[in-house]
Each structure stands twice: as C-alpha cells, then as structure tokens.
C-alpha cells in the first residue's frame, strides 16, 4: 500500500540527498517525491509517497527520518482527510483534425491546453493521481508523445494533522506543550 508523508526539513544544501539516501539504505522504494519552498524561507517541504506493507513500515520510515538532523517534522497523512494533487504536462500527437477531440477531453477533466503546435498539443492537468491516470487512458489512443509529472503534493484538510507513529520525536506530539521532556542545548 502506498503511504504519503509530509516532511518539513531545513532548507540547506544536501538535505534532499540525505533523505533519498535514507530510503535507499533502509530498503524502501520511493514512488514519488516532491520538494519545494514553504511560507518559511528556512524550511522546505517534501511530500514523499512510498510503498509500505503496514503501519510498522510507516513507523520505521518516520523514526528513521527523525534520525536526520535536518528533519524537523514528519506526518503520515495516508489515512487523514487531505487534499492531494499531482500536475502533469502531456504532449499529445494531434494535428488540426483532432484538436477539437482533445479539447473536449480537456474540458471534461478541467485540464488546459497550454501549447498548440502544427501537429501536437500540450495538455496541463492537475488533480489526484487517479484523475491523471484516467485522462492519460483516454489520450493514449490519440497518441501520447511525452509526459512529465511533478509527483504528489499533499495537505491535510482544516485542523487535521497527520498521524504520528513516534509521538514526541523532535518535540512533535506530546512534548509540545512545554519542552520539559527534551534535552537542553
């Protein structure tokens, strides 16, 4: 089963390598990984989708991520109400005679045509993985020349927080109220 983790990390050189290397080392396979800046310039956010057998694997991943000095927070949003999005650019082989057909499909999926060339179109589609897979299915008979995807990004709805398999790690969870349970510098 695919699990989705939101990970906040320090925005420093080499942190992506540390995270990726950890998954390799502990024998987990990353399905998708999206990294970007956040509302705080010193913090980057990663959305990591990874295949796990069960919650024990999720615990392992979370606990190991916390071993990295640059990892600030890890939440498992797999089972929490959340918004997940993936963005794809799909280059479709379509001359003038099939443009309308592609355009119709794009409308149904609330996708957009962002480039038109004599014999191809680029469709931009945003949504859940299933939606993008669905659109690809329908475009395939027309002819997909190229495709690129950003990988999934995720955010929990409202006041929901992701699940914490290691409460207290790095002061997240039960240590939050006062940091009395943590080491002093």
């Amino acid at each position: 089963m695919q699990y989705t983790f939101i990970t906040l990390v320090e925005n420093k050189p080499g942190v992506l390598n540390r995270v990726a290397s950890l998954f390799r080392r502990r024998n987990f396979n990353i399905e998708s990984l999206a990294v970007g800046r956040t509302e705080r310039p010193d913090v980057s956010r990663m959305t990591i989708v990874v295949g796990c057998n069960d919650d024990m694997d999720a615990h392992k991943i979370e606990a190991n991520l916390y071993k990295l000095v640059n990892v600030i927070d890890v939440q498992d949003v797999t089972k929490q109400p959340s918004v997940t999005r993936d963005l794809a650019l799909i280059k479709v082989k379509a001359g003038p005679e099939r443009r309308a057909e592609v355009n119709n499909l794009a409308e149904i999926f609330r996708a957009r045509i962002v480039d038109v060339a004599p014999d191809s179109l680029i469709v931009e589609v945003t949504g859940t993985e299933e939606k993008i897979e669905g659109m690809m299915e329908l475009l395939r008979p027309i002819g997909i020349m190229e495709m690129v995807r950003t990988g999934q990004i995720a955010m929990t709805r409202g006041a929901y927080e992701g699940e914490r398999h290691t409460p207290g790690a790095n002061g997240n969870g039960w240590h939050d109220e006062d940091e009395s349970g943590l080491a002093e510098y």
Partner: protein
Amino acid sequence: MKLTGAEILWECLVREGVEVVFGYPGGANMPLYDAMLNYPIHHVLVRHEQGGAHMADGYARASGKVGVAMGTSGPGATNLVTGIATAMMDSSPVVFITGQVAAHLIGGDAFQEVDVTGITLPITKHNYLVTRPDEIAEVVREAFYIARSGRPGPVLIDICKNAQIEKAEFEYPDEVKLPGYKPPVHAPKASLEQAVRLLEKAKRPVILLGHGALISGAEEVIQHFAVKTQTPVAMTLLGLGAFPASHPLSLGMMGMHGEAHTNLAIQNADLLLGFGMRFDDRVTGTLKTYAPNAKKIHVEIDPSEVHKNVKVDVPLVGDLKAVVTDLVPMVDEYEHEEWMQQIAEWKSEGDARSIMSWPEDGKLYVAHMVHDLWEATGGGAIITTDVGQHQMWSAQYYFLEKPNRWITSGGAGTMGFGLPSAIGAWFAHKDQEIWAVAGDGGFQMTAAELSTAVQEGANVKVAIMNNGFLGMVRQWQEFFFEKRYSGVHMKAPDFVKLADAHGVPARRVTKPEEVKEAIEWARKTEGPVVLEFVVVQEDAVYPMVPAGAALDQMLRRPTRQK
C-alpha cells in the same frame, strides 16, 4: 578579531575541552597543522588513519568525552572510514576532521579529492562540508553537541583548504540552533504507568542491559531499580560493566556466546525490560522464537530502534537514566524467589561444563589466561579487544565490577580495534592499567600502531592470543562447514622480535604455569609491553547459538575434552 579558518578551528576545539587529537597530516590539511602549533592541544601522529579513528573512539569510550581524529583529503579520509563505521555502530562520540581540496576545485577530480561527505553519509550521525571560514565556529559547536548528545555517534567535518586559509571574524556561538534535533529525555507518564502495570504482574522478569546504561550514566539507578523489583540483569556485549558481575542479580552476558542460564532465563521470561539496547541479531537469535511468552518494555533514546527487530508492548522513548529514575518511585518492592531459584539451577548445570572446572592439562587456554589476568588485575583494568574468539572469552571471563572499563567493537565487529583503542584509552586514563587483548589476526591489522605507542610512551600492555588461526572463522568452519578450513590458517611473524624491533619489551608464553609470572612482569614493566600467548589451536567458544537458531538452542561445551 579576524582569524584564519585554521585558527578558528583550534579556538573552537580548545573551547570544547579537547586535550588530544589523533591525526595524520597531508596536502589538504596542512594549514590546520600549521596553526595547531600555537594551541595547547596534544597531537598524536598515528601510523594509519584507521588507527587514529580507533584511538579517538577508545578515548571517547574510556573518558565519556568526545574524541577527535583528523586526516587529510582523499586516501586520508577514506582510511578513516572503517573507524567511523565502528564508532557509528557502537554509538561512540567522535568528531572527525578531514581536509578537503579548495572549494573551487570540488567536483573536478582534483589531486586527493574524494567526496568524503558523500561516502560517510550513511555511517555518520551527521556530517558537514565547510567551504567558508565563517562557517567553522558554528559547525564545530554543532558537531560536538550532536556527537555527544542523544544517542551519541560520529560527526564528520570536511573543511576545504581555502576555508582553512581565509580569514573570518571569530565568535564562538553560545548555543546551537538545530530545529530538527531535540533528543528526548523523559517518557510520557501514561507509558510509564503501563510499564509499571506489566512489572506488577510479572513473575519471571529479566532486565536486558545495553550500552545505553553506560552512555547515560544510569548504572546506579538501574542497580537500585533491579534490587527494588528483584529483577535479574543480563547484559549485552557492550553493556558489560554496567552492572557488577558479582551481584546476586547479575546474569552476565546474553546472546550468541552468552551463558546458557542467561539465555534460558530470557527465553523463559514473562517480561523483558530492554534498557538501552537494540535487540541485535547477536542477542536474540532467530526472532521467530525469541522470548515467546514475554511482554516487552523497551527504554531507548532512539525511536528508530523501537519495534525495529522486536515488536514491543511498551516503548519508553527517552534517556535511560531519566526514565528509570522516573520509574523507581512508581514501583513497589517485588519478590521473585521461585524465578531466581530456577535460574540458579540452570546456572549450576552450566558451571559444571565451564572450562574453569576442567583439570589442569598442561595446555594453554585463552579462557584460563583471561581468568589469570582478571585475578592479577583485581578486575579493575581497562580491557580493550579485537574481534573474535579472544573477544568472547574476554567478555566471558574478565568479570567487570565497574563501568567504562570494557572497550570492544560490538556492532561493527572491527578487527584491529584492540591496540589503537587501548592507546586512546590511555590518553583518557593515564593512571589506570590498560590491557589490549588481541588475536594473532586482528593484532596484525593495526600492528603498526605499536610504533605510535612507543613514540607516545603509552603504558598499554598487549596480550596476543596466538592460535595460528583466524579462530572464530575456523570455529564456524568446524561447526558448520564440515571442518573444511579455508583461508583461516595464518603464519604469524615472530611477535617477540617484532616488539623488539619497536623497542618494546616482550615475552612468549607457552605453558599455563608461566602465565601469572608473565602478567606480573608486564604489569611491573613501564610503557608498552607485548606478551604472546601460544594457545591451544583448535579451541572453540561455548556456549554458542548458531546463526539463525533459537536463543536456547545452544551448542554446549563437551563435558570431556577432545
């Protein structure tokens, strides 16, 4: 005031209380060596960087402080790698400082350039590449804090040559800013209460004491806890010394070469309390049948160790000393007389098989030599070892009453660790008696450090157990490969002459009756001494849990000799 990066480094090391560094100079760290002359830190010139890494490790384990090892870029840095991995596996606080080519040359395959932060990423707790002199103070402050706090471990700082030479304003930071690094100390009250409920019900509890007890300095409070709850204490290889061997509640070492009664107690327990240990495969045997009827409480500072090998019922993530201190007032005084009696029965059966009960047969056994060493030193020496049979016999027969006297490579199992770690330990405790026990194989891996010991006048005694074989591999081949000996016979040099070439007094011991006298002679002789013990060639360490077998399926020492 502006200082060069090299000067900033030494200013920082002085402020961190560093007394000694173990290193080797080269092209990419020469500015560091030049600046070093102006600072009150003793430099030990090692013979190979791996030796330097083990010395810093031995120093750290003996002193409880952070050890420091240095090397240049390229091969200097890669030679440290085995030592870094050794420190990582055994949670030893060591800061490694390597030189790197100038920042503008990085990535260009410059002379003696290797990507050392890339290479050491999986075997360090954290590492840094420093390209500017103004980064050094903050990085060093963080590195020492990370190395010694939480679950300790090695931290590597790779400093570009230009950052050593260029100048920057020096100010040592008062505090570190690490938003992603807040080690836990106390465990939640609710979990502590769950643990107490399990303890109240337990009829056959066993404490499994690991290295964490020594690291957190929890020996006293654990003894208090064990006595109050009348819970017997088994130790991991690295936990030896954390609980007095002679204590009525002590079960000695557990695991692959643990005592039979210890492993039987664990397998038959109804509650295991893992204290600062990690249920390593060498202590559990096969997990399928491990302590099948036991509830498990795990006190551990590293959350990634919880449920890693063994699924536990109550995890208590925190500092062992703090957690057990919190637990003590919550528990009542319990009695487990029946349980203790059962263990005593198992033990008396094991004593009968012990090599100690054998009649004198004129042959020299390592176990007997270790026993004699234990008697002669009153059990108070610092013992370092290599890896293999002699290590297990030392663990079994050098009964430790006090903590931090047992320095051995456990997790990594690094041969060649004994001599250099003993030299490192000497720098931590020059007033204490230090013995490096090694095999003929392991000793030769880092034998060059004998020369370092001489140069420094290190008062370490080296006991080489020469059986002409790589003993532990030979034992496995005997038991599991139909005695097809492959690549294990080793023709050693004349160790006495080798020592002599270094100017080190040495003796060869071939008979049991010479052992005590030779040990006394070594103890009385100032400075490094080598004793070669020509021991029984094909002896085996018993009991032994074969890899992949259940913990109570032990091969036992035959009651009669071969």
